[in-house]
């Protein structure tokens, strides 16, 4: 039966340890273990969660499958350096740097910018998929939400959220929704998904290997390979 969870939580994510894991399974195991260890940290109930009337699930412009998201915040006075430090840790984490993580999050890019003399913060990201259906997937565990909490704690609009008061997925959903500005125009040269880009990368590498083979020219003269031969000159 449920008991009131203790609210201890000065524990920080061990990014160094996280970065040792490789592959989807390892990453999942590691995050599950961390989830267990942190399971008592968040006891915020969504039981009676009310979404504000202003919540709009249609966020961001799209080019192909890629959606843009721009979030504007104010930095708490005196928190700029701490925020920068947390953002650098965020960048270094395994969850931003492994192929498994790239595929799992579908994030194409992300920039974290302090501006106006470090008083404001712009968080921009572009990702495959739709924003609203996938937001739960992007913060599925307490550990993931703690990572967000670590930098959200330095922002005015995030209020009391922080490592000792980890936001729920719905909290993050609503906060981001409130702080977003949809772009006027969104331009991308390509709109291939992260999965497709990995595949194209592999294909390019394989084709280069073929071209490096002395027998490639003869092989590529088969009529079925003409489209490849047409690309082989440079």
């Amino acid at each position: 039966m449920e008991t009131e969870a203790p609210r201890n939580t000065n524990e920080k994510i061990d990014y160094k340890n996280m970065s040792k894991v490789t592959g989807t399974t390892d990453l999942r195991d590691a995050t599950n273990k961390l989830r267990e260890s942190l399971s008592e940290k968040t006891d915020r109930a969504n039981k009676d969660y009310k979404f504000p009337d202003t919540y709009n699930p249609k966020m961001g412009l799209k080019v192909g499958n890629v959606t843009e998201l721009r979030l504007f915040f104010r930095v708490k006075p005196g928190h700029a350096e701490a925020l920068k430090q947390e953002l650098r840790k965020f960048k270094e984490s395994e969850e931003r740097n492994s192929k498994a993580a790239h595929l799992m999050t579908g994030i194409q890019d992300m920039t974290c910018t302090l501006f106006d003399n470090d008083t404001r913060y712009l968080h921009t990201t572009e990702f495959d998929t739709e924003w609203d259906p996938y937001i739960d997937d992007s913060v599925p565990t307490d550990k993931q939400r703690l990572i967000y909490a670590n930098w959200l704690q330095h922002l005015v609009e995030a209020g009391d959220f922080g490592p000792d008061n980890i936001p729920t997925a719905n909290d993050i959903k609503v906060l981001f929704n409130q702080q977003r500005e949809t772009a006027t125009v969104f331009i991308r040269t390509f709109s291939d998904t992260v999965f497709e880009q990995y595949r194209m990368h592999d294909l390019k590498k394989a084709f280069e290997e073929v071209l490096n083979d002395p027998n490639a020219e003869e092989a590529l003269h088969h009529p079925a390979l003409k489209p490849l031969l047409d690309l082989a000159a440079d």
Partner: protein
Amino acid sequence: MEIPNLDEIQNGALHPRPLPYVAAYIFLRIDEPREGREFLRRLLPALASASHPTDPGKQAWVTAGLTFHGLKAMGLPQDSLASFPQAFREGMAARAEQLGDVGESGPENWESPLGSPDVHVALSVISPEMERLEVLLQCARAAYKDLTGVQPIWRQDAYMLPGEREPFGFHDGISHPAIEGAGIPNTNPQEAPFKVGEFILGYRNEMNEFPQLPQPEVLGRNGTYIVISKLHTRVAAFRKYLRSRSSSPAEEELMAAKVVGRWRSGAPLALATEKDDPELGADPKRNNNFLYETDDPRGLKCPLGSHIRRMGPRDAAITGQARLHRMIRRSTAYGPMLPEGVLEDDGADRGIIFVAAMANLERQFEFVKTEWINKGTFFGAPGEKDPLTGPNVGSDQFTIPKRPIRRKLTDIPPFVINRGGEYLFIPSLPSLRWLSELDT
């Protein structure tokens, strides 16, 4: 670990269908709130709890659910009505367009009264044999027969087809998630049991959070949501399509298996790659015991876009988290099997009564439908839909990874049409009693 209160949860929310099975789905309209509540009061003794899940006596049961219109018709106070999630309040018909149910599958073409405000209460009655089904149906009928304010408006019978197959001819009902503390064995030993809150309201879910709980607590706790929809299957079209793309019966069978992800016997391609293995297909200890990522990351055995790999990607590399989108599926078959070898449609209505239980309609059913069935972005094929159940329009394609060169099936027509469906709230037994005692 939280333990679900099985004494309070309706059996139909968790229990796998009996084998064999016969079933009936009855939808009712409530014209008078007091009589509606009286109906619930009388019905209560006929409803089974989920306790003692392995008890052989628990093989036949009635499940009662209400639509949002039904809760209104029962006189539920406005505050309580407003505490339900938006998806449930709106209902399947209102969300059909975003679910991809358009054209032939659109609500304007649904079977009446499905998707209309007239559907208030749904009863699902299931049993291993006709005798017990009839007894349960009589109990259900007795609960409303002299209540003029409670009218049955739709009935659909279902029954197990030979070999426990669905109308396309595949052994189904194989993969079910285990739930912590529910006492129902896992069909995949490699899949960890799920937190109760993924399926039952009032408990922590896989995100370590509580699903939104309808208020007051007695109303929502130990309840769940069920999606029910009548899916008409175009079996002749499916067979003709496979025949037109194959040069031999063996190739036809392999192609069918690649579309589904299992052979007709139920043997998964992940374990039986080259040919069907009926012994494996019939073995519940082995036929769902597999993952994808280590042995088959590229889908050379089971295509990335095949039906079962979409419905349950397991550990495969995908965008998102597969465990957040699991449902308990309890579908049944309706209509006669199209005789073996027949390629022309005989005009019979046959298909599946899709039934799935979950705690979060948006994150589970609607996500699976819109992101996994209707698209392929999550595994790197944005333009492809589920080749079996997706809203294909005749110009769609399906990639079958294969050495030395992959194969593409093109011009896929629709094989499954939605004839209508509902989002149901399945209250706990105490919740039904509370509803029956409302005084509004």
